[in-house]
């Protein structure tokens, strides 16, 4: 999505008049004095039930990911410890028992073929998803903010060049390029000589690759915001006081940009998790035996007639994770940018 819509609340009556006698602009006619925007935003988030639940769910997912070693220690099965007794070698290592081998030992059953404990795969796979999602969102937001600041503030040829690059980035058929680029970046970064693909390096490659195609959105957003901010008085004031560019950029502009930055970060995380899982699904993402939900789903798609649980468990969980993050992102946007309220 390229446009950030900011519908104005329809309830507040007619447009405000410019009041020559009154200094500054009055926020919405209902300003509550003495509250910082951050605290107000936090108050809005807390008051929004859906967002609160989404936040709780996100924190739960993060906690599960962080506690993965503890949780798997409790069940006794790690993510790459096969249980050969749970699978039947005569049926192509298909799990014994019903529902994909769900038992007291294997809470979510086992993976056909390997006999890996699906629960352990899931909790460790969650780490992968969150790591790639958050790291790439951080990276793309950082790059996007710097590029957007530069383009918006300096204008001129810097803006032209950066905007053109953004256009090109956004014009690329992204998924196709990420698919094609993954082996290229991997190869460029790979230092070991054995010619194989390093599964941990691949995570970094995915983070880089996803960020490469995501920063332009943030940059565009920040650029627009800077363009409107730089016409405002306080920037002029700083300029008149002959403040350095760096000062103006990072001390004057950046603090006023945290809302759009946070919003684009919050919305980038679920998007990037989706991209990562899609890449793994297509077989160009995370390399097994590193656990990953997209890869599990890809594997499971081959068994979905015989062992639907194998598909459903990670499929539904991935849905819930992305849903929670999306709802949280929406909530953050609504809280920081009340004009874009859902209603």
């Amino acid at each position: 999505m390229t446009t950030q819509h900011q519908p104005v609340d329809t309830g507040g009556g007619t447009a405000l008049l410019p009041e020559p006698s009154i200094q500054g602009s009055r926020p919405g006619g209902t300003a509550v004095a003495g509250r910082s925007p951050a605290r107000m935003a936090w108050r809005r988030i807390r008051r929004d039930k859906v967002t609160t639940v989404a936040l709780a769910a996100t924190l739960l997912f993060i906690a599960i990911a962080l506690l993965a070693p503890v949780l798997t220690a409790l069940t006794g099965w790690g993510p790459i410890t096969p249980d050969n007794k749970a699978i039947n070698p005569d049926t192509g290592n298909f799990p014994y028992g019903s529902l994909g081998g769900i038992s007291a030992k294997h809470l979510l059953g086992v993976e056909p073929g390997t006999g890996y404990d699906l629960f352990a795969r899931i909790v460790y796979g969650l780490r992968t998803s969150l790591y790639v999602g958050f790291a790439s969102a951080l990276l793309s937001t950082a790059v996007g903010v710097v590029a957007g600041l530069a383009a918006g503030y300096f204008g001129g040829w810097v803006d032209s060049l950066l905007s053109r690059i953004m256009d090109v980035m956004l014009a690329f058929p992204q998924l196709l390029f990420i698919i094609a680029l993954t082996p290229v970046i991997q190869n460029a970064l790979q230092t070991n000589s054995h010619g194989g693909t390093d599964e941990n390096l691949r995570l970094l490659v995915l983070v880089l690759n996803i960020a490469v195609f995501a920063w332009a959105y943030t940059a565009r957003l920040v650029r627009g915001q800077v363009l409107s901010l730089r016409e405002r008085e306080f920037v002029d004031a700083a300029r008149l006081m002959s403040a350095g560019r760096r000062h103006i950029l990072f001390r004057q502009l950046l603090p006023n940009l945290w809302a759009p930055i946070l919003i684009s970060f919050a919305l980038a995380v679920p998007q990037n998790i989706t991209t990562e899982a899609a890449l793994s699904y297509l077989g160009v993402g995370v390399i097994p035996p590193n656990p990953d939900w997209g890869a599990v789903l890809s594997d499971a798609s081959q068994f979905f007639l015989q062992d639907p649980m194998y598909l459903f468990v990670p499929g539904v969980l991935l849905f819930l994770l992305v849903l929670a993050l999306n709802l949280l992102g929406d909530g953050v946007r609504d809280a920081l940018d009340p004009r874009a309220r859902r209603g």
Partner: protein
Amino acid sequence: MFRYLIRRLLAAAVIMLVITTITFFIFFALPSNPALLACGKTCSPSRLAEIKHSLGLDQSYLTQYWEFLKGLVVGRDYGDQSVRIHCGAPCLGISFQTDTPVLTTLLQDFPADLSLGLGAAVAFLILGVGLGTVAAVRRGRAADKAAVGLALFGVSVQIYFIGLLLLYLFVDKFQILPTSGYTPFTEDPAGWFQGLILPWSTLVIVYLAMYTRLTRSSMLEVFSEDYMRTARAKGLPAATVVLKHGLRAAITPIITIFGMDVGSLIGGSAVITESVFGINGIGKLAVDSVQNSDLPVILGTTLFAATFVVLANVVVDLVYGLVDPRVRLA
């Protein structure tokens, strides 16, 4: 208008050149050796060198790039050993795998993407805009909550999960539909339709979500505009206010995104859908060619897709000029 078009097309051409250059050099850095793959088992170094030469891979990247650009404009001939293969302009190269001009292959796959992309686009535009309008009008009520919920579902669900689920339900479990896939319309219209129902539905579920959200927020923004109040103040019925005055304005930003989406969809960006439903489109061709290190095809598919996106940009701008009288194309 005409001059504007020329200027836009020139700008598009520049962007395409940049994309071409980047793609060319990125993909020739691919960690693979197409000559070795073509050589087959038990390949002696001298034979390998010959094949490299035959594929033109022994030249410097710059020379290869120049040849490629030249081929785009004037076409080129391949093979100095056996019978020469002519690749007419715009020549995107010859597949290492099949020895056919890449463009020929792309054009063969294109109808599948066209059917998949356009069919889905029509459906998700109509449904998304409809649903988004209803949601905006019934803001905060049950219908709105349902639409917002549906949109969130579509945004959050994984396209392959939905695809597999649909396959499981409609093909395997209840056997309502035959296996999905692409049959040319000219061959078997019924089969074309049946084979595409599930892929369309999958794309619609995902895109519908975006369009519902977009329409809803665009609509809400328009609702707050003064001219909407004017329309009501004139005594127009609510339906006219919403559907004529509201939608007319709200649809404009959606056109931009719709144009880009259609461009990238028919350019082959529905990779996952194609892969889940076994549709031989450009997206699947791209994935396969990456796996086969078929550089000319990788290059060709990405350029083909990018061309559609860039052209869609131009078309969107032109349409914008027609839709919004304030925009003057000069």
